[in-house]
Every structure is written in C-alpha cells, then in structure tokens.
C-alpha cells in the first residue's frame, strides 16, 4: 500500500477534489453522494500535501431507510463517504456514502450488505491466537451491533490507512448470531441499514482505539472482541490497543493516519429555526497540521481520558445549578439530550420525548473542562411541533428528555450537546495523547 500512495495522490491532483473526497468509486451497493459544491480551496503548504478534507452532508439518509412498513427519513445525521479496497488491490474498491461522522464513538463500522459481494470476499477477517476469526460486539446506549472484524485499505479524502480493521455489522456464517454476552446488555440489534440509520459509521472521538486497555486485558467495555470458531462466537478474547499497524482493535481512523492524525475540525453552517432539507459542511483532518485547520478556537475544553473512572471524552456542563460531570459534544446525537423538569414535554405521539417550550427559549449551560477552563454552551431551544418544518431533515435547537423517571436518578450526570450544537460553529475534537495546536488532546474546542 505504501508504494501506491504517490499514485493515489497523483490521481487526486489530476482529477477534481471531489474524486478524492468522496464521489465516484465502484459502488454497486450504494449511491455515491453528490460532489461537493462549495468545497474550500486548501491553502498550499510544504509538500507533500495530503488532501485533508471532505464534505459532510446532512440529508434524508440512504434510500433503504425510507422503504417498507417502518419507512422513515434521517434527521440531523451528518454523513460522509469513505472508500475501502481489498488490501493491496486498487482494482477492487468501493466508495460508500451515508457513513455517519461520529465524534462520540471510535472506529469504522459498515453494515455488511452495502459492501459489494466481490469486495467482501476479498476482505480478510482478523484471526486470533488460535487461528479462528475475530468478531466484535459494540454497544450504544440503546442498541448493539455485532459482526466480523475485517481488514481493508481505507481512505477518506486523501488520507489512507493500509490493512485497517473495521467491523462488518451483520456478517453471516459464524457471525450470524450475536453472542449472549453481547445481546444481554439490552437494546435493539442494529444489523440492517434501516435499523442502523446509515450505511455505517466512522467514529472519530477522543480515544485512539475503540476499547483500549480493557479489551487488551481480555475483558469487555462497550466494545468486546470474540473468538469465533465454527460453532459460533462466545468467548471474549484479548486484543491489543495499537493505534497504528499492526492493528488488533478498531483504531480511530484519524489517529491511524500517517499525517493529520491529532484530531478533526468540523465546520457546519448555521441553520434557520424551521430547518432545511439538506445541509453541507466540511470535516478537516488534523488540527494545526495544514493551512486549513489552524486552531483558532476561543474555547478549548480538555476532556477526561481513558484512565478516568468517569470514562473518556467528558467535560462538566453546569445547568440549572447542577454540575453534570459526564457531558459531551457528539455529532452522532441528533438532538440535545438533557433533563429539565421545568420544561413542558410535547404531547404529540412521535414527539413525546421532546421539549415543547411555549416560545423559543434561550438556555445557558456552561462548560468546565478538566483543567478548569470554562466556556458557554448556550443555545436556543425550539418547539418541534411549532417551529420545525415537517419537511426538514435538519433542524436546530431541539431538546430531548432522556429520562421518564422522576426525580432524576443519581447517575443522570450528562448534558449531551448533539449535532445542533455544531451548527454555525467550527468544532475541534483532539485525540488523547496527541499534541494538537497549542494544546495536548483530548479536548473539544470551538
């Protein structure tokens, strides 16, 4: 792969930037997104320069969501396109659109049926110490995804990683059934595009791998790796936490890039209260590594690390006088999630977890970082039944109450600043242990 890099780079220069950033490719199982219209011109830097940015699109989602009795359209989901190739083979590649760009998780996961059969057959499965294939379970707050751990030559924009492991969700054969210790955490098995809400997800959060030391010790966190003999996957196995090749756990792809590997900068336009059908912005890889990703943020908020008993990637948000010590910025959350028992909840059937304020309501949570730095988390809360257009796939300022239980329970210590917080901002997510501009990661900045 290393020898191919100059050739890939040459293709990018000779063609349009869009060809590097996401369009095109040999996708039979998915439709590529439109070429970016207003992609900024990268500032020239010392050579060799890698194209370090690509378009982020929020739209109705892949067509597979809007089919059948459970048809729906995506809401506030930021998507990018990625390309995977059979290791060492640029002739067997596929560009896959509608991959969620998620600052709240780590690792590349693709719903298996969107991968061309001929490519899938050429993607080796990781094998463990006994020679058996490796499976992975990954748990989200209300769901889980199980599948094989495959290797591919990965690229996004001009950034490439050879032999990068990713999770093929809903893989068949020995991976057909999620292990009991995976499903017993509860939640929905999200093993189809419609259930997942996307063709896949690329987690670019604050950690370098998706599990870290816990999986290295052969235990489970939200992620767990499995030995998968012919009888199926059952035993959890130890996998090292290398952030560069040779990989075992899924890496944060950004941390595994050869350059621009200290974090991301996500730039999204502001959105009018009624919302829009489509929104496009840009994700830049690297912080302070090229002319287009300088750290110009006025608020820099170092977060907890993997060693924290609270978990990684958290800051404190103080809201209504309560210090919420496990708060976070998350492009993978489509709303703000927070508890405020003084705000009315909507009564409409499909909105009855949302706040329905009687008028647009300015809210003023404040951030406190692990180093004591502070910042404003202020935003205006809107009423989805009144303000949001019915045709909007993207809308700002919607809040969800994550708990039905009153009074709020002792563990409810989060204010989740979802994708609406990123509208109209330039938000940096710096990776743990990496120097990023003036400050060492992990941090969020804006």
């Amino acid at each position, binding site marked *: 792969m290393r020898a191919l890099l100059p050739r890939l780079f040459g293709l990018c220069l000779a063609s349009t930037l869009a060809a590097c950033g996401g369009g095109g490719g040999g996708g039979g199982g998915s439709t590529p997104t439109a070429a970016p219209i207003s992609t900024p011109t990268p500032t020239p830097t010392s050579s060799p320069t890698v194209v370090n940015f690509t378009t982020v699109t929020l739209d109705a989602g892949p067509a597979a969501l809007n089919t059948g009795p459970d048809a729906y359209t995506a809401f506030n989901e930021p998507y990018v396109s990625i390309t995977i190739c059979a290791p060492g083979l640029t002739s067997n590649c596929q560009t896959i659109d509608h991959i969620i760009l998620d600052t709240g998780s780590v690792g590349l996961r693709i719903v298996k049926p969107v991968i061309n059969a001929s490519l899938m057959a050429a993607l080796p499965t990781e094998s463990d110490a006994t020679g058996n294939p490796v499976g992975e379970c990954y748990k989200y707050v209300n769901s889980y995804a199980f599948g094989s751990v495959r290797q591919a030559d990965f690229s996004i924009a001009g950034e490439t990683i050879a032999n990068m492991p990713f999770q093929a969700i809903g893989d068949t054969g020995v991976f057909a059934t999620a292990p009991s210790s995976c499903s017993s955490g509860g939640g929905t098995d999200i093993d189809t595009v419609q259930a997942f809400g996307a063709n896949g997800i690329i987690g670019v959060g604050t950690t370098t791998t998706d599990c870290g030391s816990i999986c290295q010790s052969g235990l489970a966190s939200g992620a767990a790796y499995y030995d998968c003999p012919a009888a199926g996957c059952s035993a959890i196995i130890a996998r090292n936490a290398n952030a560069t090749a040779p990989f075992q756990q899924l890496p944060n792809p950004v941390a595994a890039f050869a350059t621009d590997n200290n974090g991301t900068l996500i730039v999204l336009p502001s959105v009018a209260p009624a919302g829009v059908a489509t929104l496009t912005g840009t994700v830049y890889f690297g912080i302070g590594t090229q002319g287009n990703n300088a750290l110009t943020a006025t608020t820099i908020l170092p977060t907890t690390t993997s060693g924290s008993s609270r978990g990684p990637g958290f800051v404190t948000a103080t809201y209504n006088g309560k210090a919420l010590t496990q708060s976070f910025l998350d492009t993978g959350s489509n709303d703000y999630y927070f508890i405020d028992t003084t705000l009315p909840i909507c009564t409409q059937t499909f909105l009855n977890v949302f706040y329905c304020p009687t008028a647009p309501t300015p809210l003023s949570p404040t951030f406190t970082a692990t180093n004591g730095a502070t910042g404003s988390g202020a935003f205006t809360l809107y009423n989805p039944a009144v303000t949001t257009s019915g045709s909007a796939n993207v809308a700002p300022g919607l809040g969800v109450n*994550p708990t039905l239980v009153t009074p709020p329970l002792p*563990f409810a210590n989060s204010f989740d600043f979802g994708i609406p917080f990123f509208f109209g901002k330039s938000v940096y997510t710096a990776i743990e242990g990496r120097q990023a501009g003036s400050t060492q990661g992990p941090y969020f900045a804006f």
Partner: protein
Amino acid sequence: MTGVQTDRAHLAARLSSTTIGTHTRHEMTLPNGGLVKEFTNANGRVYALTWSGPGKPDLRSLLGGYFDRLQAGNARINPRARRQPMQLVRSDVVIQTGGHMGYFWGVAYIPALAPAGFAVTELQ
C-alpha cells in the same frame, strides 16, 4: 432481580455488603471495574439494583423477567431521537438506563418490595 449470591457468581464479582436501617446494600465490583449494587429489604428480597461502568453487565440475568419487558418497551428507535435511552416506567417496576461510549449506567427497582420511605435518590 434473582438473588445476590447468584448474581455475584454469574458476574465473577467481588462483593461487599452494608446494612443501613431497613435495607442492605450489596456492592459488586466487576472484573472490568464496573459496579453492580443490589439492595435487599428486611426479608432479603432484592428490591433495587444499579449498574455503572465501562460496559453493560448481563442485564438479561440481573433483571430476570423484567428484561424482556424492557426490550419490548423499547423495540423501536425513534428516528428523530435516536439516542433516547431504554427505560420502562410501570406501576410494578421502574427501569432507567443511560450512558455514552466508555460509561453506561442504569437503575431498576420494584416499588412493591421497597422498604417504607424508599426514595430513588438513595440508590447511590
């Protein structure tokens, strides 16, 4: 909500128990550093449990018959609120979950088995 010793063995956990007034708190430390706490009433029945830590414990085992009800009550993800955590609020059982990458938590209790004067805020 089966029994403390059964759960301790199933979870391969270290156990320490403390009696406070009308209830006993059994604190189990899991191999991955997570915590499961079970609360028993004067008759030794589990009336509440909490979990917290880097992963999710075996809720099918811990919640017993309530697990399937929690699953059934949260079978469909709301596309406009995809991160809404699983929860179940019924007259006979209350379950609330939450979390984010690297830290998940939950609380479950059975009001009919709880000691008089029980408040959910005691479930620390």
